[in-house]
């Protein structure tokens, strides 16, 4: 625990991440104002005691919008990372266990194929074909997480496969599937957590980007990217409309990246020793 908190990037990263996940969780049960009710008379009010972040062009409370937006962003990014891990890790383990086989080739070339396409363009295509919604955004972002995790898992697993204790397990008669689950997977978890954090922050950015061009969550669901897009023409009238969602995206992504950095330092024993 001490190592965790003494790490220079861990603490601020953790705090920022906790603030935004906290806001998202709180928004499930309570928000200061209902974000689906518009109040035109109160529109574009500057930050005040009633509305700490002010109100938007429809008179909605921006603080509440940010909280609900955090929920949208985190939900989309989390599920997208989940898709990536659930599909990518088994593929990576299988490829490593059968290194050099046809299976390995097929999996890795498929990965290369997905990597070869610009991810945002494919996401735009998916949402254009199947309609814009949060669900399609999740699928689009999730697909691009699969090769990231597959490669990482395969790379890490390959170095493990040459270790003596794996050899021992094979001598003991364990099959490759069992070895993968019992010995390889636990030893790549650290890496996966670190990568997961980074992918999580990229997922939030991707969701904001898709919403910004109108392909993410649809109104009335609040979304940071759409808040930014909607406030764009009003930036000279009411800068706070764009400022707060912009800051929310920035700080969340920063927090997750710092936390990912910190986690890598903490979880990788080699790095830790060399620093102290």
């Amino acid at each position, binding site marked *: 625990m001490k190592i965790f908190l003494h790490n220079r990037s861990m603490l601020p990263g953790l705090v920022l991440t906790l603030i935004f996940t906290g806001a998202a969780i709180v928004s499930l049960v309570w928000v200061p104002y209902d974000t689906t009710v518009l109040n035109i008379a109160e529109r574009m009010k500057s930050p005040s005691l009633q509305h700490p972040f002010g109100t938007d062009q429809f008179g909605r409370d921006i603080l509440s919008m940010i909280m609900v937006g955090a929920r949208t962003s985190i939900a989309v990014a989390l599920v997208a990372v989940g898709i990536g891990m659930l599909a990518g890790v088994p593929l990576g383990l299988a490829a490593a266990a059968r290194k050099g086989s046809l299976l390995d080739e097929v999996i890795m070339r498929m990965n290369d194929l997905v990597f070869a396409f610009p991810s945002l363009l494919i996401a735009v295509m998916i949402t254009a074909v199947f309609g814009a919604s949060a669900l399609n955004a999740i699928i689009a972002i999730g697909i691009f997480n699969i090769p990231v995790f597959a490669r990482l898992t395969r790379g890490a697993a390959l170095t493990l496969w040459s270790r003596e204790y794996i050899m021992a397990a094979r001598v003991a008669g364990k099959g490759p599937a069992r070895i993968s689950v019992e010995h390889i997977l636990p030893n790549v978890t650290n890496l996966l957590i670190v990568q997961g954090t980074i992918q999580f922050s990229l997922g939030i950015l991707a969701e904001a980007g898709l919403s910004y061009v109108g392909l993410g969550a649809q109104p009335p669901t609040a979304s940071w990217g759409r808040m930014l897009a909607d406030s764009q023409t009003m930036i000279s*009238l009411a800068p706070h409309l764009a400022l707060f969602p912009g800051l929310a995206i920035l700080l969340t992504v920063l927090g997750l990246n710092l936390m990912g950095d910190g986690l890598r330092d903490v979880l990788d024993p080699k790095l830790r020793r060399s620093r102290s």
Partner: protein
Amino acid sequence: MRLKLFGNGLISALALAASIGIAEAKTDIIVAMQLEPPHLDPTSAAAGAIDSVLYSNVFEGLTRFGPDGSVNPGLAKSWTISEDGKTYTFNLHDGVKFHDGTDMTAEDVKFSLDRARGDDSANAQKALFAGIESVEVIDPVTVKVTLSEANSNFLFNMAWGDAVIVAPETIADIKTNPVGTGAFKFSDWVQGDKIDLEKNPDYWGTPAQLDNVTFKFISDPTAAFAAVMAEDVNAFVGFPAPENLPQFEADPRFQVLVGSTEGETILAMNNKLEPFDNIKVREAVAHAIDRQAIIDGAMFGYGTPIGTHFAPHNPDYVDLTGLSQYDPERSKALLAEAGFPDGFETTLKLPPPSYARRGGEIIASQLRAVGIETEITNLEWAQWLEQVFRGKDYGLTIVSHTEPMDIGIYARPDYYFQYDNPAFQELFAAITSENDPEKRSELLKQAEEMIAKDYVNAYLFQLAFPTVADARIKGLWKNQPTQATDLTAVVWED
């Protein structure tokens, strides 16, 4: 020596700059608008964007609309109307040439009118021509049109963009290469970007002051703002972000014209789709809507509330907003009466303009307050025309009807909101054949009231038409009596 050389260079550069300044005023203009036409044939599509580019610039009709909505002579320099009001004899201008060099004669007029009213005509406003019984060519510059019944609106009808004169020789390619008689001729269309027009040197009337015209299509309000601010475009007609207008007004580089339009902005309901086939449900929707909130929230105060499908600046307008006042309690009661005490779910399909996108969010929130849940879908224009206008696959939609005097669409049961009321169809037939202005006005008022009392659609507001332009440009239309960007009189001033 070096210094001297430099000095000479500087002086000649200055002289060059000065001579450019003294040279004639600018003769090219870049006009931006939000919507791109789907194709370039004004006689076979409902899309107003076609007229916004081509009306009066490239295509002309027998009569034409002036900037104030008056009907003026166009290709016909004069006409006589028979005693019974059934026969119109048009005297055409002599020596009018199409852009391909062929002569425009009475034969072309006959061809255009017969084509528009023919059985296989794709004209979006066929009703304009419905009363024509025959078109006869008397001589190359005289054409006689016989109507089955007297129609007080005939000259007005002939001024529409749907009634422009086209040539049989070039009709096949009109959608990509429009050939008209106007002061500008079509030169190039880069799809998704711009349409170029150039001056027609052989124009029969007063020649245009501009040599080159570019229409640029910028659908995104943010990009529109940036393009005007950076002076990438010289004028933006129908500026989509009303919140930015005060900023342009304060800037001496620009002029802002806020004109009126024929654009009745309505929340259209699919009258044949459950539950909107029930008049109580439609009435409930009408009462659930707070017009002022939409005008303030979506249009930043630019717009006039309307209670029926009629332009408030028209002398025959009746203010019927009282029939559909904002009253959520009454709305809930009506829903309960109609058998929907807990409300219902429907779709709300929104085309790109900001009045629809922003207005849609506000309306969704207002409807939610009375229990009607809407699923918002944002559509591009092509999708909207396909799904909503032609496919009638929608519950609710928001759109502005920018054609002048278009109450007649309610007499068309197959129109996209599918209002099928024989009483209204009879009434509209009576309006069309009524020649006495007073009686006509009376009938029009009845028609306005009938659709308001049937709650066919929820009538929101009359669209304002903001134009932001370089302060040196003179001659732009302020109002939009029809969808048009008439540049024939536009000139740069210093």
